[in-house]
């Protein structure tokens, strides 16, 4: 790699990209700029269009409409073998009849490059597979094959490296290890990585920027922490981590904060965290931000509070997960760290739930409160704020820990 002149890395632009299969739009008018050298994650449930987007960038799928550019170069109509883009395929697609060395050398040989031996060895060193050079893919473990797939793509020094659920086939422990590994490699080579995944933790661990995709569109885009702290839609709030969402009505607003009435309780949230102009809103707060107070316990000044009855408490080591039923029938999830000091509330106990106003966020009231939650984990169907207000919401809303 040192032998190659420093490459001017450029941004990847997707402009109004659309892919339709018959009536169904897999990718729907998607516009996106991925900054050069960044680690970008496309996160979404299966069928959200993230893989289709990736395949269009790779040239393996032809867009119905829109444009793909790298810097100023329009690559929309370029054949895949002419694009300065390489892919790490889901389940790797290593050539089974070639050894590791030849797999990695494949791209260089096709382009008639020089110094192939030295460059392949250098790349094998980067992914720590030097002793395996003469093995066949079938003789290697999943993690090793995964590293070969990365090496085979990276050695070509593409402008953009596409990773299609590259860790999906690995077990949890190996996946964690490879996440760190991939991040290290990306930092080392400085190439733009576009990573497609449905694993929100993976996206947050690795990427500088995460785009949450749903139904062919981008729901929200931002740094992991920003997405987590200030989700802008119910889908983003539920898909990235867990959220407690309940409906409310804006009663007053000023430049700093918004006052909301929810089921007779006053709730405050910072104006910057409200994503709608509508007065009907959804108030959200993350489970670990909630604190439970037993009856008679003092609640510090200025915190938002709700009361409820503990319906479930499960001890999971570092924390205890509580389900607290509100008077209007929703169940809130709360994670309390096990500090060992105070006595924990038991099931059936009435508690006060409190949180910092800064930790709440406000979403548009017309969102589906359960959007983004895996349907398999839902014991009840989808419902909106209006349903909750009408008392139509059965409990519990979600399975704890899901």
């Amino acid at each position, binding site marked *: 790699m040192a032998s190659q002149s420093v490459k001017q890395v450029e941004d990847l632009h997707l402009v109004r990209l659309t892919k339709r299969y018959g009536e169904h739009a897999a990718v729907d008018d998607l516009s996106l700029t991925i900054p050069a050298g960044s680690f970008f994650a496309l996160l979404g449930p299966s069928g959200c269009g993230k893989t289709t987007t990736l395949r269009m960038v790779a040239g*393996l799928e032809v867009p119905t409409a829109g444009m793909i550019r790298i810097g100023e170069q329009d690559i929309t109509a370029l054949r*895949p*073998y*002419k694009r300065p883009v390489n892919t790490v395929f889901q389940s790797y*697609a290593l050539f*089974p009849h070639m050894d590791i060395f030849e797999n990695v050398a*494949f791209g260089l040989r096709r382009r008639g490059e020089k110094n192939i031996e030295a460059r392949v060895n250098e790349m094998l060193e980067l992914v720590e597979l030097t002793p395996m050079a003469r093995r066949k893919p079938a003789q290697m473990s999943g993690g090793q094959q995964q590293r070969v797939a990365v090496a085979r793509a990276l050695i070509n020094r593409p402008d953009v490296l596409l990773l299609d659920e590259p860790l999906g086939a690995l077990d949890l422990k190996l996946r964690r290890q490879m996440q760190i590994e991939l991040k290290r490699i990306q930092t080392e080579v400085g190439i733009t990585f576009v990573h497609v995944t449905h694993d929100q933790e993976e996206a947050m661990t690795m990427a500088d920027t995460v785009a949450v995709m749903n139904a062919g569109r981008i729901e929200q885009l931002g740094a992991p922490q920003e997405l987590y702290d200030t989700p802008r839609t119910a889908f983003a709030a539920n898909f990235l981590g867990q959220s407690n969402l309940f409906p409310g009505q804006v009663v007053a607003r000023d430049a700093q904060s918004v006052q909301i009435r929810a089921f007779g309780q006053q709730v405050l949230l910072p104006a910057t965290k409200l994503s709608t102009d509508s007065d009907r809103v959804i108030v959200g707060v993350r489970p670990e931000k909630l604190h439970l107070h037993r009856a008679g316990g003092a609640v510090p000044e200025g915190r938002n509070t709700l009361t409820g009855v503990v319906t479930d408490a499960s001890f999971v080591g570092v924390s205890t997960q509580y389900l607290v039923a509100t008077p209007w029938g929703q169940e809130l999830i709360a994670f309390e760290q096990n500090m060992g000091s105070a006595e924990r509330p038991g099931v059936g106990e009435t508690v006060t739930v409190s949180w910092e106003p800064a930790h709440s966020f406000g979403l548009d009231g017309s969102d589906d409160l359960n959007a983004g939650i895996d349907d398999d984990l839902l014991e009840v169907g989808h419902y909106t704020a209006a349903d909750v207000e009408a008392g139509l919401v059965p409990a519990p809303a979600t399975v704890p820990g899901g």
Partner: protein
Amino acid sequence: MQIPASSPAIDVAGVPTPAAPAPGLTRGRAVPYWLLLPGMLWLTVFFVVPLVSLFATSLQSPVSDNPDDGYYFNWDFSNYSEALSRYGEQYVRSFVFAGLATLLALAIAYPLAYFIAFKAGRWKALLLVLVVAPFFASFLIRTYAWRTILADEGFVVDLLNALNLLPQDRVLNTPLAVVTGITYNFLPFMILPLYASLDKIDPRLAEAGADLYAKPLTTFRKVIWPLSMPGVVAGTLLTFIPAAGDYINARLLGSTNDRMIGSVIDSQFIIVRDYPIASALSFLLMATILILVTIYVRRAGTEDLL
């Protein structure tokens, strides 16, 4: 399908010799060997014994000039040189025709199998049924049908003549007809193994090739073709071996100048009743096929077969 006199060669190539069971095997471990028993018995009675008898016959001499008087065993190896000198031409022709038909079948079958494996989608099953559909009619009848198709007054000849593509003005009773017939008759044996091999290839490998700067033709040459080699080897063997011993196509579609060794063996056994010569020819055919196949498999095997 009719079984040509020489077809046992297939079995020679295809049957693995099992290791003798080690003494002291527990009952459970001996079970696989018991499962071998019916097959082994069958092969012994209907293959090994006839083979030995055929070999013995190939070393016999006639008692008199009249074949009715029979033959006696006297280690007469001159039958082999005699057979070769008399029928060397047909012998060589058999391998040339079989080789041509095999190449032709490969050229036709590969694109077809490729299409069925990668592009046919939901039509896959139907197309595979169509590939084997000819087997519902007898081998003999299908070959007779080709006589009609290729007949001098037929539309094929008319068309080819109109296009000035026929130097001899006819197809039937020429080598072309024989090779065409063999190709047709053994085509399914080429398509099916090729399909089985291609179908196992992950289509994403082709995408990976394209992603790694290989043009479609290069991807085919470097990825698809090498991975389909097991199918190519199996298909060519399944076509070439029976084609070399075939005697129906040459007889029904060729002239007397296009006879193949299968027809010679057939007439030596049935009409002339020169059993030693016929047996010697059978053995020569078998031995040659065995040698060719061994060389072929060895060579193909060096190319990193999976």
